[in-house]
């Protein structure tokens, strides 16, 4: 069953053609990594999947709803599709625990005791239970990102989107975040779409790699195949630049 399906999708920012004829099918439970040079449209693509950016043409079916249709209730999709950003975007006016508990309380009407129990378990899981009552701004980038992941997981989403989750982190923080992402990817029911420059992570956890350039998908290959023998010259060039 597909979780995310792009059919002939076109996306414009005003006159600028940002996504060109996108066709992509992500099955439920799959982990897909998006690679490509800066400005190729990776963020744009991933942001269309939860309706942060509207698309103008084609069909974009996410969890059974067509986001290309302006009538679609984006909120229903977003309940099931979490997103982790490069700059965390934790609620600056809420404590760590409240960051995690707010959406389940407001959106899922989760019982308060249950909500707190789940939130604390998630904090435990990302190794930050002792930070529950801290404000996000007092934490390091790596800690904030782990909390942002916990916040997404608290909604028990079917899919998670990651837009360069480790790019803004100090190198020594990167592995803590990647470790949690690996654990999530190991859960066979979670669909993950990840924009990253962490090639080690991509090789290890991705089922497939998508290579983008200039708003187009140039290559869509199983991970091993992509790294062993990229078909596209631009993908080859990109890989050689990243790895060396």
């Amino acid at each position, binding site marked *: 069953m597909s979780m995310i399906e792009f059919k002939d999708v076109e996306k414009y920012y005003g006159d600028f053609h940002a996504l060109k004829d996108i066709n992509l099918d992500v099955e439920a439970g799959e982990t897909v990594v998006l690679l490509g040079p800066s400005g190729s449209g990776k963020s744009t693509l991933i942001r269309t999947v*939860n*309706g*942060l950016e509207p698309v103008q043409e084609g069909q974009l079916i996410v969890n059974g709803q067509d986001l290309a249709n302006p009538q679609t209730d*984006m*909120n229903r999709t*977003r*309940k099931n*599709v*979490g*997103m982790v*950003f490069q*700059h*965390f*975007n*934790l*609620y*600056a*006016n*809420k404590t760590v625990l409240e960051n995690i508990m*707010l*959406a389940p309380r*407001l*959106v*899922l009407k989760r019982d308060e005791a249950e909500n707190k129990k789940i939130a604390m378990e998630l904090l435990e899981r990302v190794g930050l239970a002792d930070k529950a009552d801290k404000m996000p701004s007092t934490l390091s980038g790596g800690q904030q990102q782990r909390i*942002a992941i916990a*916040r*997404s997981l608290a*909604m028990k989403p079917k899919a998670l*989107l990651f837009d360069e989750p480790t790019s803004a982190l100090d190198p020594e923080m990167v592995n803590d975040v990647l470790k949690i992402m690996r654990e999530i990817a190991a859960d066979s029911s979670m669909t993950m779409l990840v924009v990253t420059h962490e090639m080690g992570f991509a090789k290890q956890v991705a089922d497939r790699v998508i290579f983008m350039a200039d708003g187009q998908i140039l290559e869509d290959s199983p991970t091993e195949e992509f790294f062993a023998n990229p078909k596209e010259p631009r993908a080859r060039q990109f890989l050689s630049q990243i790895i060396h």
Partner: protein
Amino acid sequence: MAEFLSAFSWINIRFLLMGLWVTIEVAVVSVILSFIIGSLLGVIRYVKIPYLSRIVGFIIDVIRNLPLLLIIFFTYFALPKIGIHLGVMTSTIFALTIFESAMLAEVIRSGIVAVPKGQLEGALSNGLSFKQALWHIILPQAYKKMIPPIVSQFVSLIKDTSLATIIMLPEVTYRAQIIYAQEPNAIVAMFFALAVLYFALNYVISKIGRILDRRMAA
């Protein structure tokens, strides 16, 4: 000097303080009302509802560019002509609320705009509706940043209540005039008293605002 001091009889002081109380009453009610209305208008400006936001923006611009005195005159002298009779106190509150709402709407809109865009995107991605994001995430952060401008609006509101002297609202400036109309020798003393009262009141408000701001920032 004796003249100056004799103006401060207990009766006069009491009379002035009762006026100060009217000033405070009018200012507090107006500031609360304009805070609510200004927030609503500021949000409407921010979310860009077709037509409505444009119209609201236009009305706000018009009001912001009118002298407050004109609005007071209008509510007190013109509204009765179309069958709306408001008392002196209500007229003043009405006029101040209209004027202050327009001022605060802009303060609040720019406060909302100053909240980083990622906060809204984070909230929406987390499953919150736009309204929930606004109420729980965006507005609290916007208000926090807006404490200093809101306090300074409150201070100018208190000063502006003196304009209602013109429609004979028995606030503190009006009462000072009554006193020196009867005791012409008291005129200097009364202006002095007014200056002290306004200063003291506004100083206290500014001080509270600063403490609030510091506490919220922590």
